[in-house]
């Protein structure tokens, strides 16, 4: 048994648009080990989003293999993919994607609703624990429009954590947030990572990528660079160095 969470071998993805074939991924290979904090970077059109959909089991490769926790995704049916997403992946989106007019607690409970093995009491307990892990005690009954952007993203992270996934998959999770809040979220991510969570973070901001342990650079549907971050920054320190008078 390896401790590889993701194993991507020569993955290709082609889309047929009318008569033309668009090759979004042209053979991508890399692994992610348990406990890593990997950023996937790339400019728009580099195949970043396609790769993300693939990693999130929302899409299947045209060619190549993708093993998630030793399961070959390509061989699974739609319903099996749904189950895989439910148990192994925690999504964090740029636009938070919380259900409107639904309390934070209910939003966090949502993934567990689709797991019939979990009782309603266990569901609630785990949702409360997840919200406490993202430091949102006392906000359980708040609906998304009663929460700030940063708080909403933390609810979304709690939702991603609640099913105890093997990997958290974040898509531009800080894209809608200001610098200070972004750093707060990254600090939370780093905390989760130090506690052993594997995180794959898609972004186009080099600034954010510096907080991770490794960066995979995509360009034109291929891996251009795959480097360990030597000068890893700590979000807590970055936060402390921000001028205090930011919010007035």
């Amino acid at each position, binding site marked *: 048994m390896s401790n590889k969470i993701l194993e991507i071998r020569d993955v290709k993805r082609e889309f047929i648009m009318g008569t033309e074939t668009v090759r979004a991924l042209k053979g991508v290979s890399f692994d992610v080990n348990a406990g890593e904090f990997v950023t996937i970077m790339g400019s728009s059109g580099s195949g970043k989003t396609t790769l993300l959909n693939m990693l999130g089991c929302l899409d299947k490769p045209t060619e190549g293999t993708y093993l998630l926790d030793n399961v070959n995704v390509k061989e699974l049916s739609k319903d099996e993919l749904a189950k895989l*997403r439910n148990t192994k992946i925690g999504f964090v*989106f740029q636009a938070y994607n919380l259900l409107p007019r639904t309390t934070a607690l209910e939003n966090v409970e949502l993934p567990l609703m689709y797991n019939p093995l979990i009782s309603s009491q266990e569901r609630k307990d785990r949702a409360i624990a997840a919200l406490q892990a993202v430091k949102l005690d006392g906000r359980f009954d708040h609906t998304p429009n009663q929460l700030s952007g940063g708080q909403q993203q933390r609810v979304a992270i709690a939702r991603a954590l609640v099913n105890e996934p093997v990997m958290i998959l974040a898509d531009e999770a800080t894209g809608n947030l200001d610098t200070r809040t972004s750093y707060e979220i990254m600090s939370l991510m780093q905390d989760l990572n130090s506690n052993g969570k594997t995180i794959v973070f898609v972004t186009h901001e080099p600034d954010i990528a510096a907080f991770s342990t490794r960066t995979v650079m995509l360009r034109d549907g291929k891996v251009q660079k795959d480097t360990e971050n030597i000068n890893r920054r700590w979000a807590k320190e970055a936060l402390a160095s921000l001028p205090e008078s930011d919010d007035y």
Partner: protein
Amino acid sequence: MKIINLILLAMKALQRNKLRALLTMLGIIIGVASVITMMSIGEGSKQSINNSLSSMGSNMITIMPQSNEPGGARIMGSSFKTLTIKDVDALKKNAAHIASISPLASSSGQSISGANNWPTTIQGVSPEYLDIRKLSVQDGIIFSEQDVKSSAKVCLLGKTVVDNLFPGGESPLGKVIRFGKIPLQVIGVLTPKGTSNFGQDQDDIIIAPYTTVQKRVLSSIYFNQIYASATKEDDSDAAVDEANTALRETHKLREGEENDFQIRTQAELMTMLNSTSSMMTALLTAVASISLVIGGIGIMNIMYVSVTERTREIGLRMSIGARGVDILLQFLIEAVMISVTGGVIGVILGISAAIIIPAMLNWPTVISEFSIIISFLVCAITGIFFGYYPALKASGLDPIEALRYE
């Protein structure tokens, strides 16, 4: 997702859009309520027809004269002169399934008592008439066979006639009234029967021996009708056959020749009247069910809107592990819940209407469980049918596109 959670989810979704849910339900509510109301009015009128017919005697057979001449101007059956006392005797002798028989010779005219007068109908009958028509004597006695033989100048009065000729409230028994020029002694008063289903006052009659009416009033040997009662309700058909044979014989009709009389049973009349009211009910129910269908289309419409509105929600649910069937059920249950809630409200409204209508409009209504079960089933099916396509659309969404839907 567990069904109970899906139901809770649907309830929550409807609660969030209360007004919209209510407006969507409106079509179903109106449809179900009107189907139940229409069916209960139909059922009510059917039952009141049946009641009044059986109060007239369910084993009653009526024989009326009829023209057997083809062509020419058709005139009212009772103005043909084909039925005589010979027919009555023949029926008495040959028709084994006829229990009692009475001819009827009637005439309209003015009844007079002292200073009071009243236009009414005199019915010349035999004493059996009361049994056949389920009439009874409230005060006094019925005339005897002897009175019939002697064309006695005696009569029984209906309540309406009593009220008009004796407005002071004194007993008419023993008094002599006149019908036209003929003096008649009142020997009895009939028990009131009230208005018939066809709006006829059944108490506006004078009853006298048929001989008296034939000889003294009409100066005719013919009858307008012959009433008979079959031994049992089930024997009606046998009695009709016997009467048919007996009358053809007395009327000397050859084979192939048309009858110059007409025999009707109460059962036939009942079927005829019921078929009319059934048709009306069916028609009204059909109109009402159209609104059920329109209600269903309303549900379909709003579910499509709802699916489009919640595309991102669907995408999110899929990305965190909802299977297609989970999404399908979520929207299907929501649609069914709209239609079933509408159905419940409709049933309540329909039943209330069926209770209020008799009080306000004096129409009889009978609430049938059948109509409630049927309309309830129909609206559940409507919900499934019209909710299925939007739900299918939702479940077929691509999570990638749904998540990025603006």
